[in-house]
């Protein structure tokens, strides 16, 4: 047993099964990445389904993507990238031992995340509803376009669910940060939440081109949407 197995000698947040703080940090990080690997496969199943159906009905998937409003997609991409930046800066503030910017950046991240969800639910999905683009009775267009919209709503919906969970975790972290729980020696919860938040950002980075851009946005002669 090493010396720091004795209680009272630990730095805050340091568990005594580890040799040193750096080893604990790397182990915690690795565990989070293992979880993210399962998340990659979780979303991967949906991406797989999208690839298969797109390969069967490329025309219908292009038609479907032309019905989406690119303004919402691109604005939300920018909002989410900005939230990733503020998340990274929140962790940076903890690493250099600053408390106030930590809280400020965490709150900014939550606001940007909420803005993304607000734009998506209140404007984009509402517009889709009014344009009869929700799969089911009254859907306009052919069944294969409807299939595209099944993927669209399920993938963006699952992504939105991940963001709601992320915002929930950020609320807890903000309270912890306000109580001074994180400093330059211990910020693992912040860092792991950061990994999760950036992962959700990466999912959107792929959803945006696959759903909004894949069909191309240039005018096709003789076809009006």
């Amino acid at each position: 047993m090493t010396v720091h197995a004795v209680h009272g000698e630990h730095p805050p947040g340091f568990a005594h099964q580890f040799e040193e703080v750096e080893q604990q940090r790397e182990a915690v990080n690795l565990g989070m990445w293992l979880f993210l690997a399962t998340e990659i496969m979780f979303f991967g199943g949906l991406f797989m389904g999208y690839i298969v159906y797109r390969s069967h009905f490329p025309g219908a998937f292009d038609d479907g993507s032309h019905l989406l409003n690119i303004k919402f997609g691109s604005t939300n991409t920018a909002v989410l990238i900005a939230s990733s930046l503020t998340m990274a800066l929140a962790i940076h503030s903890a690493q250099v031992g600053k408390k106030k910017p930590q809280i400020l950046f965490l709150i900014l991240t939550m606001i940007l995340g909420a803005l993304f969800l607000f734009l998506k639910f209140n404007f984009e999905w509402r517009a889709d509803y009014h344009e009869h683009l929700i799969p089911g009775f009254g859907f306009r267009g052919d069944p294969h376009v409807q299939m595209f919209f099944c993927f669209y709503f399920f993938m963006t919906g699952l992504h939105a669910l991940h963001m709601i969970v992320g915002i929930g975790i950020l609320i807890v972290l903000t309270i912890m940060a306000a109580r001074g729980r994180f400093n330059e020696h211990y910020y693992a919860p912040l860092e792991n939440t950061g990994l999760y938040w950036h992962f959700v950002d990466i999912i959107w980075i792929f959803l945006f081109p696959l759903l909004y851009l894949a069909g191309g946005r240039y005018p096709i002669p003789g076809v009006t949407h």
Partner: protein
Amino acid sequence: MSGHVVPVKIYVAVFVSLIFLTALTTAVAYVDMGKFNLVAALAIAVAKMLLVILFFMHVKYSPTLTKVVIVAAFVWLGIMVTLTLSDELTRNWGVKVTGWSMILPHLRGLF
């Protein structure tokens, strides 16, 4: 001291690059390149993903073990996509004869 502290300058540079790439991918979608529209969109998405993973997620400064786990995660995704497509895309190869219809003509004369 624990963990590598990435300077704020780098985070801001990555953020600016990501916004630029988002604008680029949106602009490129308005140019008719046929099948290459999809290729360009995905290539830009992969570039954006690498920026986020390497810098925002600190993987550039992570131990090799973590990097191996991340690469393995993508290899597994690759296995799923490759095996599924090797089935899906080759189903119509060869003559389409299924089940009993293959031997029925031969049985007809016997009964």
